[in-house]
């Protein structure tokens, strides 16, 4: 039965197997319809990232001390500071509007993750291609370097680098790309090794194509699916990493409204003003969740072999 591994939906009327409604809907929402994650992605990440300067209700940096620690609009709030529609998600210790900060935070997350992916992804892909294609000592060397980077305690290294250079937007991107490239290199190398065995590579070689040409014309097109899936799945990881670094004070510097920074700001007030930490956390979670769903979906569509990435 090693035939079409495609398994297999039972007809609805079969009596011994009646899927519960709940399960059915969860299943459909997760797997079959990209609608769910597309919506989340758009609402939480893409729309605010693109339009925050115009659509955010307040300036994310503007402090209004009279309004400090206002509760979100759906909660009861306190006597002297009733919740207001002006600050839907409430305000923080300095009276800054949480919603506006979360929206601007999307912008930061998107920018950091795209830049880091571009840099780390390009570096890793190139090295992976070279390593897999040429083999021999080049391969050994690159793979040992990959090993080194995979054995370093990443967050700690990031902290150290930031301690040396000081926190900034570009340090964060640099640190994350440095941490990212090794995974790319390893995955792409494995893929290239498999492709190298195929007939069309041998044919191209026989017909006298140069290595560069073979890599660009024959190998690269065959790893694009992997690249797309890998990138999508990594966006989530990168956003989490950036948030963690920012939370630890080693990512995006204050007073920028990075999500991780906001959670850190809210940490000490969790008992009295939970919304400061909770709202940006939900934004992180939803973004990463939808990116992962998108990655899974793409992987199933593009390349079921990648199940383990």
């Amino acid at each position, binding site marked *: *039965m090693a035939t079409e591994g*495609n398994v*297999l939906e*039972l*007809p609805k009327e*079969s009596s011994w197997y009646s899927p519960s409604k709940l399960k059915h809907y969860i299943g459909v929402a997760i797997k079959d319809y990209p609608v769910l994650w597309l919506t989340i992605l758009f609402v939480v990440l893409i729309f605010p990232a693109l339009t925050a300067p115009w659509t955010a209700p307040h300036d994310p940096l503007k402090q209004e001390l009279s309004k400090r620690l206002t509760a979100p609009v759906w909660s009861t709030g306190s006597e002297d500071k009733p919740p207001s529609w002006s600050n839907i998600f409430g305000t923080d210790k300095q009276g800054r509007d949480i919603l506006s900060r979360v929206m601007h935070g999307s912008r930061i997350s998107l920018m950091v993750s795209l830049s880091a992916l571009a840099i780390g992804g390009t570096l890793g892909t190139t090295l992976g291609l070279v390593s897999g294609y040429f083999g021999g000592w080049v391969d050994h060397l690159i793979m040992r370097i990959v090993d080194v980077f995979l054995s370093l305690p990443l967050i700690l290294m990031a902290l150290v680098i930031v301690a040396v250079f000081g926190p900034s937007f570009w340090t964060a991107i640099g640190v994350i790309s440095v941490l990212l490239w090794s995974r790319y290199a390893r995955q792409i190398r494995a893929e290239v090794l498999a492709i190298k065995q195929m007939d069309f590579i041998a044919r191209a070689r026989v017909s006298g194509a140069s290595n560069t040409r073979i890599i660009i014309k024959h190998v690269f097109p065959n790893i694009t699916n992997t690249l797309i899936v890998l990138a999508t799945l990594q966006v989530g990881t990168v956003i989490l990493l950036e948030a963690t670094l920012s939370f630890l004070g080693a990512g995006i510097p204050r007073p920028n409204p990075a999500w991780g920074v906001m959670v850190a700001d809210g940490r000490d007030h969790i008992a009295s003003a939970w919304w400061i930490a909770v709202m940006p956390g939900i934004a992180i979670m939803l973004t990463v969740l939808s990116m992962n769903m998108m990655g899974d979906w793409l992987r199933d569509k593009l390349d079921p072999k990648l199940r383990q990435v």
Partner: protein
Amino acid sequence: MTTSSEVYKEPEKKIGNVVLEVRDLRTYLYTKWGVTKAVDGLNFEVREGETLGIVGESGCGKSMTALSMLRLAPKPAARTVSGQIILDGEDILQRPEPEMRFIRGQKISMILQDPMTSLNPVYSIGNQMVEALGMYYQGEDNKGLKGRAVDILRKMGVAAPERRIIDYPHQMSGGMKQRVVGAMAISGTPRVLICDEPTTALDVTIQAQYLRLLKQVQADTGVSIIFITHDMGVVAKMCDRVAVMYAGKIVEQGELRSVFNNPSHPYTKALMASVPSMEHAHVEKLYSIEGQPPALFDLPVGCRFANRCEFADAKCLEAYPPMFQDEDGHTADCWRLEGQWKKVAEATT
């Protein structure tokens, strides 16, 4: 071990009573594309010490038939929707699932097609054999079970079995692995042994040795064999009776001689025509029939072979033929036999 230099004598055959009787067996697969009727109303029986061959093209449902007999068709897709599998007078489809453990391996056993993948790579073959034997001979100690394992391996022609028993599958050749798989299959002294293309993956000389071993085992133990293959040559060597399967159905069935001398279904004829002569048959495969069998989830109403049959007419496209039988008990499903042979069953679709 039987080597090719020895003069090989056919072991004597003793054929007894019916052991296994399959009646109207239907196993359907519920797939995305619809209901795949992989096994669609099979009827056959096997006697003690007899070998029944099941031949047919790839994808016609042979393996699904075999697995259905053990109630191991892949769940949840596959479901045996009707039929009876009567073993020693009792329908095993009626047994509760937990009891199947005592039937699998001990009443009905099976050798799978690919020796390279059918042994678990992370356990030694001794471990894998003793584990099974432990169930068949409950209460026996490990040493006794090991002794049994060694004996059975020797019987299946494994040289120096007491040393090989600690080996892992990857340390053995394909032929050797298939012997181990065979040893496992007979270790529960089953009444029926299903061999699902056991030699397809082996090279020709090893193949012949393996077939001889099976015959020897059969002569020694009286086990009934259901031999699945798509190689007519192997059928000619191994089997007492043949069932020809096409698109989920048995289209012709009878004594080996009778079917080979007088193939009565056009599909069987085509199969025979693709084998040049019985002597050199094992090197030839079939597959030289034009056209494609119908998809099992989208079967025509009429005869399933009609689209490839040179004799097909309007009637064949309209209705599936009933089963006809000649005086030797040789049966076939073909409209062209109407009037010549006796009709024994209505069309079953």
